């Protein structure tokens, strides 16, 4: 199951917001198709780790390598392009554009990559079908339930066939049943698409959908597989 080298790896990342360090020598690695949970108490730096790994935030020091490329050496435009083409994102909330219909939201990453509207929305609808929300196509995010909205967001994160899917507390705003459903669909879809998943969560039941977990505490990471 494990290919030769990791798809995405980070080595001794440091990042401080003002005087407080958010990351203080964190390491990370994930292989293609793997689901890795990033756990830890709130404020431990797990979201910052995700932002660094995804190229949203540049670390103060340390290296991030994605598919043999040095992420920290890229400029903003290159990293944006990489995020559009290779990465997908799901957040806890506030991520769907309220004015766009659900299908337009899902199609958005494709459109940002330059796809035509019609093609993009056709692909989007196929993904929505996979996440069992294809009947919501014409509705706006304000008109659907939280679980449905989150599934729309998952569809959107996968619509570009990303190599890595970043999910930051994807079930944080959902009840147990909807959370389970979203996690099941997310991991199933990601596995069948061969996407690696970086899953930030503090919930064990959510982390149980992962292949292994990494614990972040006080800005330092701990790979539990190597410990046990």
């Amino acid at each position: 199951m494990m290919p030769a080298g990791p798809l995405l790896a980070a080595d001794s990342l440091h990042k401080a917001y003002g005087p407080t360090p958010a990351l203080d020598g964190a390491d990370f690695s994930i292989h293609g198709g793997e689901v890795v949970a990033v756990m830890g108490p709130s404020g431990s730096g797990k979201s910052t780790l995700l932002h660094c790994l995804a190229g949203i935030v540049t670390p103060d020091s340390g290296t991030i390598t994605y598919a043999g490329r040095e992420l920290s050496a890229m400029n903003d435009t290159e990293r944006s392009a990489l995020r559009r083409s290779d990465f997908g994102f799901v957040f806890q909330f506030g991520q769907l554009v309220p004015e766009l219909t659900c299908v337009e939201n899902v199609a958005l990453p494709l459109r940002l990559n330059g796809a035509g509207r019609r093609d993009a929305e056709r692909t989007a609808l196929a993904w929505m079908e996979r996440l069992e929300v294809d009947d919501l196509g014409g509705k706006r995010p304000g008109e659907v339930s939280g679980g449905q909205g989150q599934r729309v967001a998952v569809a959107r994160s996968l619509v570009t066939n990303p190599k890595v899917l970043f999910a930051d507390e994807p079930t944080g705003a959902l009840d147990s049943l909807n959370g389970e459903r979203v996690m099941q669909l997310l991991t199933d879809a990601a596995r069948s698409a061969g996407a690696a998943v970086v899953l930030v969560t503090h919930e064990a039941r959510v982390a149980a959908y992962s292949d292994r977990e990494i614990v972040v505490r006080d800005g330092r990471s701990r790979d539990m597989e190597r410990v046990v």
Partner: protein
Amino acid sequence: MACIVTGMSIGHALLGLLESGPRHGYDLKRAFDEKFGHDRPLHYGQVYSTMSRLLKNGLVEVDGVEAGDGPDRKRYAITDAGITDVARWLATPEKPEPYLQSTLYTKVVLALMTGRDASDLLDTQRAEHLRLMRILTDRKRRGDLADQLVCDHALFHLEADLRWLELTAARLDGLTKEVRG
């Protein structure tokens, strides 16, 4: 609530208490009751039989006997083998099961008392819990509704353990002060 320290773990608890220095059997009982006994104190007979077993296994030795009769006159000290045994016990995750907190609590307190890193213990335990939870989650995904309900029950209990673990980890600083102080 069941007695929170049972079976083998009483032995480890007593061993752990001895790590800070030799004690009389009676002292041991009092220290145990204070730290772990809560509403159900240890019988003196339990102390006597446990210490006999530990002596037999070479984990403790008799440090000296005071004048008078009875086993309570013996002073016990931990051996090197005993210290290793405590360390191994603390590092070994408990099999995840309901009402595990008692053992875990004992472990955390002992780790702190003996100056070991309690967060390592918690992380190790979490990893073990998650291993089981992954298996249960996997079974749930393949199984029918009944399987799902059964697995969910177990998962929620395990999650509760872990939550408690997280909370304990978050409170370690305060706990350290209280335990050592």
